């Protein structure tokens, strides 16, 4: 079994790429990484490249922050993104006003934010101005 620490993900982010864990047995993609495939239970997992494209699953507009770095940025957008290859991650959406965002919207990873240690933290930005109305499906 290979380890499932975040290092490969963090290294890829520093190079401006998004990585995800993929099951060698069934092909399932997952993020955050785990010790087993959440689909088939296999322990044969490898890090592979993701395109960095996904769907905005939900988002919150935060006016209070847990740390000084984020306090300087309020209001900021805390979000959950589903990657096209599989995997669901917590992130920030940048470059859009909250009123421009919709659940189900296409988003793309951006690699602009570097912390004091030099680590790049992937964020997401709106990929299209607006998703097609027909896509809004389940809201009846």
């Amino acid at each position, binding site marked *: 079994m290979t380890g499932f620490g*975040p290092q490969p*993900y*963090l290294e890829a982010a520093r190079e401006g790429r998004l990585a995800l864990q993929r099951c060698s047995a069934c092909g399932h993609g997952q*993020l*955050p990484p785990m010790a087993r495939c959440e689909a088939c239970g296999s322990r044969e997992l490898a890090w592979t490249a993701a395109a960095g494209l996904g769907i905005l*699953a*939900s*988002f*919150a*507009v*935060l*006016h*209070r*922050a*847990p*740390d*000084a*770095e*984020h*306090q300087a*940025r309020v*209001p*900021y957008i*805390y*979000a*959950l993104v589903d990657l096209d290859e599989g995997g*669901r*991650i*917590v*992130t*920030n959406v940048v470059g859009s006003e*909250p009123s421009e965002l*919709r*659940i189900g919207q296409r988003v793309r990873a951006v690699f602009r934010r570097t*912390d004091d240690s030099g*680590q790049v*933290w992937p964020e997401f930005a709106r990929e299209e101005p607006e998703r097609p109305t027909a896509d809004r499906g*389940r*809201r009846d």
Partner: protein
Amino acid sequence: MTARATIIGIGEADGGRRTGRSGVELGAEAALRAVADAGLTLDAVDGLLVESPDVEQHHMAHLALADALAWRPRFATSTGCGGATPFANVILAAAALEARLAERILVVDYDARQTRRNADPAQRMARTAGHKNPWEDPYGPVTAAKFALIARAHMERFGTTREQLAAITVRARQQGARRPGAQLRTPVSLEEVLASPPIAEPLHVLDCCVVSDWGSALLLAHAAHGRGRAVDVLGFGQGHQGYAITRAPDLTAFPGIAESGRLAYEMAGVGPADVDVALLYVSFTITLLIAYENLGFCPIGEGGKYASGELPVNPHGGQLSYSGGHGHFLTEAVRQLRGEAPSGQVPGARVALCHGSAAAVLSSYTVILGPPG
């Protein structure tokens, strides 16, 4: 119905906002009151289950509390299941009693979250600095953020409104206003809730539970000891989807809660329609709505409409008014079933459902209580 255990005493410390007291002092006060309520002394109690406090003495809280009580229990453990801990500990106590690990067990939760929290915001923030969890911390999460993700998904998918969520706070404050000892006893209007400052939109300040100093305790014994003012544990269940919000593939339905409720209903031999009074954990307004739906009180998606319905819920005001503590949902259920609630008594209440959730709403414990025999 076969009782699994019986609750023979309850106690609450004189808590509230910024009492200036230590958590262990509040816990000891609640514990001694529960023992006295049962007409016993601590010599007759040999078990202790304690919630690990958040801001004070995480380390071996069960022993710190026993020391404060000058007491040596023969069975003692502390557990950490977030705000659902006392609910989880009632289940553990029932199992421990059955295994004869102890004859009478105190379940205690306490914390001095107002008094002991760091007065310096920068120091408080430092707690999460350093990006300990790379999957979350770099993105500035606050507790309300995960609940806001769930609230937004519910609003988008089902058309739930902020007004429907705000009505939950309005009702909680109305009920708490009548309850002596409730922390927030001022009623609020729908407009005031809507106009309160945003925290994690769509949630605002008045969608959030209060922050408190508190202590609460229950004394449990074998089911055979249930008589008089005792209240029986009729059923319980739990369900866990995960800890991280990323473990919930659908933010509008929570199978962990549904499983927890189903197991408890089955064990107690009752259904949602038999529940006379519900004591539902309400860290945020959306938490209550999700509990209604996933415990089967109403269909998924209809919690917004149901929230202003007939079911008596949290007659003491719950966490939006009474206290930010955790065990008071269980002590209130006992008062309701004894017919001793000082306000909001549900006439003739015989079945109380208590629900605690944690890890946003991904982790769930349900306890169903009823009168003995």
